[in-house]
């Protein structure tokens, strides 16, 4: 509905038109509508939206918002704030360093999409619109009005390309569709944010703390969503609200500030992550937390191999498996053929060393290959590991891994009398089993982040990137390509092994089927690679966020069932089409966009 009135095709249209909105409304009325609609949406969340508590989240209460209403409230509050800021109110200008209008459009879209999603799912689940209370209808109308008002705000229309008179009908259709698309993009295009000025460092650190606190809150909320509708609503609101903040220029400014205090940001992020178990009342979501952390850590290790050195490794999960098996074999489990029980530190060393050896063994013959061939061979080795583990069961081969039953009843880690399997009370908070492992895993993640940061920004890291960029030139610069690649492979492998040692204890059991190439449950090789690509290659936060999303989404959207992989594929294709650099573009990419000589992309692309 956003697009039908656009597309002034005639090439003879007056060139210098006054900027106008998508919908024909005077600017003042549009702005008023956006503000009024948003404010009314805020109000409506305090009303009842439906009459029965059958719809999850209890939206029947007057007086305070519940469930999805909270999300709508957040979106609408953001929209109201931005709408007020768009009037040029003093002081609020700081909130919108890149101009308020595009941000306002996204914020109203966030409120509108969440509201309508709620209203529609109430109607469809309870059987018809009659189940809506006036509050729900008010919310729907108000959020629609706000969104319409935001769309009616003037924007810079792209010039239509002249039409070739020889075009066939199909080409003309394509042309007009292309122009419509350009216009739609221009509607949501934001300006360039002004660089953030130098603030006193305490203020900057406070901003970092606030950003991290916000991140922790959003993450905790997302992980704790109890029913499908709430999680989908959460995704809608969070996605569009993030886009709004991005268009407002706040994300760019925040990343500038965090870039100035990198060490503080990294430490702060770990503190924030360490606070996560304290926000949980039971162990249910800490479980998710520790699995996400394992997945994310392995993805980060893979990022060294793929993101820095550019070696496409499709069998990476095997290294996690080697680490897990190694730790399981020396854990004192009754199904392990070795009757030993190593202390945890020794098990970690064994796991990492086993993965290292395995990595070098696989890397030495395969790293002479380039590109696709390497990918295929690593894929093969990943499967070889799994099948070998399956067959070392005493009948097909020596009894080491206990075949497809795996090594089970792996005891909990006990470090200096601290039993990870028991609950502990820390300052009034109960820290359960998974929370214990969460903290342990966090230390491993910290090690991986440290290795990634330090090796990435050094002689060896530059050599990795050089090999990725142009192997022939790198060799001509004196880089021993094979050796450097082998180091990348070995480092990546031992980091995955490190995570594997913890994973073995967390999951109690290690079986070959945990280490597939592709499956519905992360971590597997395909999902690991997807987390890296989705999050942003060569960055630290990218794979962490990518892994969190890739773990949470299938986990929360159980109703997708067999369509999970399909939905995942579609999402990946869309992402590659619209944001090929990943969610978190790395510094080099950012630098690429910060060139002053470059024209804004919307202009250059409109001409093409």
């Amino acid at each position: 509905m956003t697009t039908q009135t656009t597309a002034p095709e005639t090439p003879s249209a007056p060139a210098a038109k006054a900027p106008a909105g998508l919908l024909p409304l005077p600017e003042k009325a549009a702005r008023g509508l956006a503000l009024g609609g948003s404010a009314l949406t805020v109000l409506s969340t305090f009303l009842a939206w439906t009459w029965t508590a059958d719809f999850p989240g209890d939206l029947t209460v007057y007086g305070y918002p519940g469930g999805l209403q909270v999300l709508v409230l957040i979106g609408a509050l953001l929209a109201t704030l931005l709408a007020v800021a768009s009037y040029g109110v003093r002081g609020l200008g700081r909130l919108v360093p890149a101009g308020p209008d595009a941000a306002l459009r996204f914020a109203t879209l966030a409120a509108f999409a969440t509201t309508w999603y709620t209203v529609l799912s109430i109607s469809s689940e309870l059987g018809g619109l009659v189940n809506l209370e006036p509050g729900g209808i008010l919310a729907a109308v108000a959020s629609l009005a706000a969104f319409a008002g935001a769309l009616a705000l003037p924007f810079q229309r792209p010039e239509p390309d002249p039409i070739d008179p020889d075009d066939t009908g199909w080409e003309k259709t394509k042309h007009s569709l292309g122009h419509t698309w350009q216009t739609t993009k221009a509607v949501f295009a934001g300006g360039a944010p002004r660089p953030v000025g130098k603030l006193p460092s305490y203020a900057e650190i406070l901003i970092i703390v606030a950003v991290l606190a916000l991140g922790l809150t959003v993450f905790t909320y997302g992980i704790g969503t109890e029913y499908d509708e709430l999680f989908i609503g959460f995704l809608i609101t969070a996605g569009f609200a993030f886009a709004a903040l991005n268009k407002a220029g706040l994300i760019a400014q925040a990343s500038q500030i965090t870039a100035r205090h990198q060490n503080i940001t990294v430490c702060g992020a770990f503190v924030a992550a360490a606070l996560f178990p304290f926000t949980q009342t039971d162990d249910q979501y800490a479980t998710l937390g520790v699995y996400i952390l394992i997945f994310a850590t392995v993805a980060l290790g893979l990022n060294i191999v793929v993101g820095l050195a550019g070696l496409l490794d499709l069998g990476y999960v095997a290294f996690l498996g080697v680490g897990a098996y190694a730790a399981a074999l020396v854990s004192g489990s009754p199904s392990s053929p070795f009757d030993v029980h190593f202390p945890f530190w020794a098990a970690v060393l064994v796991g990492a060393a086993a993965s290292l050896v395995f990595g070098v063994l696989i890397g030495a013959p395969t790293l002479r290959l380039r590109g696709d061939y390497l990918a295929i061979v690593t894929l093969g080795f990943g499967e070889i590991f799994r099948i070998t583990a399956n067959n070392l069961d005493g009948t097909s081969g020596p009894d080491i891994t206990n075949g497809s039953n795996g090594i089970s009843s792996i005891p909990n880690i006990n470090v200096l009398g601290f039993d990870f399997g028991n609950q502990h009370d820390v300052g009034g908070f109960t820290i359960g089993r998974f929370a214990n492992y969460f903290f342990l895993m966090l230390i491993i993640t910290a090690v991986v982040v440290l290795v990634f940061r330090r090796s990435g920004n050094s002689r060896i890291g530059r050599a990795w990137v050089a090999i990725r960029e142009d192997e022939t030139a790198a060799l001509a610069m004196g880089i021993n390509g094979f050796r450097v690649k082998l180091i990348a492979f070995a480092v990546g492998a031992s980091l995955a092994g490190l995570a594997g040692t913890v994973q073995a204890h967390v999951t109690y059991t290690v079986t070959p089927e945990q280490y597939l190439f592709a499956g519905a449950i992360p971590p597997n090789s395909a999902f690991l690679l997807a987390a890296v690509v989705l999050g942003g290659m060569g960055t630290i936060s990218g794979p962490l966020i990518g892994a969190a999303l890739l773990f949470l989404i299938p986990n929360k959207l159980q109703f997708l069932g067999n369509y999970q992989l399909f939905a995942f594929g579609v999402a990946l294709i869309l992402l590659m089409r619209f944001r090929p650099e990943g969610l978190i573009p790395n510094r080099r990419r950012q630098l690429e966009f910060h060139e002053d000589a470059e024209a804004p992309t919307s202009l250059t692309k409109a001409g093409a």
Partner: protein
Amino acid sequence: MTTDTTTQGGAAVAPAPGETVLDARGVTMRFGGLTAVRDVDLTVNAGEIVGLIGPNGAGKTTFFNCLTGLYVPTEGEVRYKGAVLPPKSFKVTAAGIARTFQNIRLFANMTVLENVLVGRHTRTKEGFWSAVLRGPGFHRAEKASRDRAMELLAFVGLDHKAEHLARNLPYGEQRKLEIARALASEPGLLLLDEPTAGMNPQETRTTEELVFAIRDMGIAVLVIEHDMRFIFNLCDRVAVLVQGEKLVEGDSATVQGDERVVAAYLGEPYEDAPGAEEVAEVEAAEAGAETTAHAAPGKEND
């Protein structure tokens, strides 16, 4: 292990003028049945700029690749300061021969400074553990490398663009950056593969000055080029490669005066005989074509 041999090879040891830096003897490169380079001898002395010219497809770049270890010559050997070159290109660079490429091959997504730092790879030896542990030695080496890289960038006039991405540099500056990156490996011999390709006359002149300045640093230069004015201004000696064989070698005047060189470039027949033969051949073919055309219109007799 590669690093101990390097310090001797580096430019830090100023070579005595006249000392032979590069000595290629009887270099032959065959790809299956094709002989791309046949029995080429070439020496480059310290403090010299030597040019290598020839028509397209003469085997210049193949010869270059033989010198830099990208190819291992089928026959013959290449010696750098008396030692036979190792057959791997990274070892050749470590030994002291650096090169640029005909088609610019920068690390496009790295910054200008990082590109030069990569060139320092062979002259530093901080490994993975040093990078992770970050001892004082690491910081010292890193700082020394950065200082040296900035010096080199200043030398080619790119120090103000150190933090730009290499891909965003204009063409001429990319060429300069490639030279700076090659210099960062502290070579005793620099091989330039068409350094002025695609440049305007002004840029060509600055490149010329740059090459002279590099020579004055005590680095011998071997340069492939199609721009004759550039070559004859620049080079102390010029070798001409035609169809994989060295035709002439000498100073500018000798090479410019040699009629075989002119013939190789302009395509004149060496003697009358092939010309007359060709004429006869063409006439015979035409006559034959006429008769066959009359006799059997659809027949292909070639």
